[in-house]
């Protein structure tokens, strides 16, 4: 082996500077053990490099040393803890050999409890839904019953009106629209025997603000108050009016709220003769 050539190749420097791969490293270490000259040269190179590194020395921050010692102190403590912990576990296992079985029992009962709780929640929500549906159906039922009742009342009323209108004793007078409101129309039903008078509004514009419709009976050429029409339409289309004796004609005028003692002729909407 040519020691001189080996040194000249620069492999020792490369080794000292960490440039060699693993095979080269092992080669250098093996040869250095065999040849003291190589080891001496390597030592010199390492010493040179140490000096070179030292020339770059820089004051390290003061706190680092304490941080290192703190970390080293911590390294020792966890080991002690682990030992105590493992001793405790061994002790427990010896004391209660059935612990393993108990664990399964606990796991099983926890599982059962969880499943039972889930079922309870599901059933409760289903019951709640059914209850709510029942309440809704009950409400619907009573609404229908009320509708039926009110329909019955309406039917009775209509039957009553039909009787009034269809009675042979009842005179029907159609009041047609006048100049002021040619589209308007109303009916008067007058039972001469019972002396009952009804008005049926077919078509009238809503009265002006503060005004009301008033029915007049023309008796012997004189207008007589036959009563006020309600402000708003009622369920019954027939409105019972005042008794006024023998009349030849009827008319409706728009008067101030509450009515007037004599009709305002310019405000006459409809009129009809018997």
């Amino acid at each position, binding site marked *: 082996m040519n020691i001189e050539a080996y040194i*000249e*190749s*620069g*492999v020792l*420097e*490369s080794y*000292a*500077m*960490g*440039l060699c791969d693993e095979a080269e490293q092992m080669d250098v*270490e093996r040869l250095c*053990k065999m040849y*003291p000259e190589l*080891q*001496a040269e*390597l*030592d*010199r*190179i*390492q*010493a*040179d*490099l*140490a*000096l*070179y*590194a*030292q*020339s*770059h*020395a*820089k*004051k*390290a*921050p003061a*706190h*680092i*040393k304490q*941080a*290192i*010692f703190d*970390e*080293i102190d911590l*390294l020792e403590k966890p080991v002690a803890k682990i030992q105590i912990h493992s001793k405790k576990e061994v002790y427990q296992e010896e004391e209660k050999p059935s612990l393993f079985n108990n664990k399964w029992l606990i796991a099983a009962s926890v599982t059962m409890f969880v499943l039972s709780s889930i079922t309870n929640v599901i059933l409760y929500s289903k019951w709640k839904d059914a209850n709510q549906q029942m309440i809704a159906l009950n409400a619907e039922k009573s609404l229908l019953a009320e509708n039926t009742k009110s329909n019955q009342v309406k039917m009775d009323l209509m039957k009553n009106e039909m009787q009034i209108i269809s009675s042979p004793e009842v005179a029907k007078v159609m009041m047609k629209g006048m100049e002021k409101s040619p589209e308007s129309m109303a009916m008067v039903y007058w039972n001469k025997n019972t002396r009952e008078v009804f008005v049926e509004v077919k078509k009238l514009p809503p009265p002006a603000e503060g005004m009301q419709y008033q029915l007049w009976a023309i008796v012997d050429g004189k207008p007589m108050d036959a009563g006020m029409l309600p402000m708003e339409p009622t369920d019954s289309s027939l409105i019972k009016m005042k008794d006024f004796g023998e009349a030849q004609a009827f008319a409706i005028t728009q008067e101030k709220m509450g009515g007037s003692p004599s009709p305002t002729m310019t405000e006459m909407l409809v009129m009809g003769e018997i």
Partner: protein
Amino acid sequence: MCYAKTTFLVKSFSTYSNEKTLVDALKAEDKQAFSYLYDNYSDALYGVINRIVLSDEIAGDVLQEVFVKIWKNIDNYSREKGSIFTWMMNISRNVAIDQIRSRQYQNEAQNQSIEDFVYDIDKSEQVTSQVDHIGLKEVLTMLKPEHKILINKVYFEGYTQEEISQELDMPLGTVKTRIRAAMQHLRQILNVQKT
């Protein structure tokens, strides 16, 4: 064998008169010996780490990690691997290089050109009084820049032969002999300083 140049690193304390007693004390988990080790080598290692990571903050973290590793792994150290400083220097290099090669660091640091690198070295050549006393700093200014760069790239930054070949534009086969030449030059300078 020649240890003359490394002995200056170990101050002649009565308790640790030579490296062997120091290493033996460390292997016996003697914290006083470890404190002594830190006091004598931390600045040298911090300087090298700083040269690699180019950040005081990261260098501090790396130095801490390095000394904890030294404490944990002192049993792995054997005289055959070189001086204790060489061993600690290798640990420092490896931890620092791992640090700069981690992605986090690469995001933070910017690539430095050779010119920047040389400038950085000259600018931050903060050496301890110990080294000043020896006059090493002044002497090392005599080292040729190309040799300085080569040694720094390989020794401090852990460049591979391929990386050196590419970065410094030299044939792969000549990398080792160039390193040898650079080290020979360094030795000449150190010998001049010695005499």
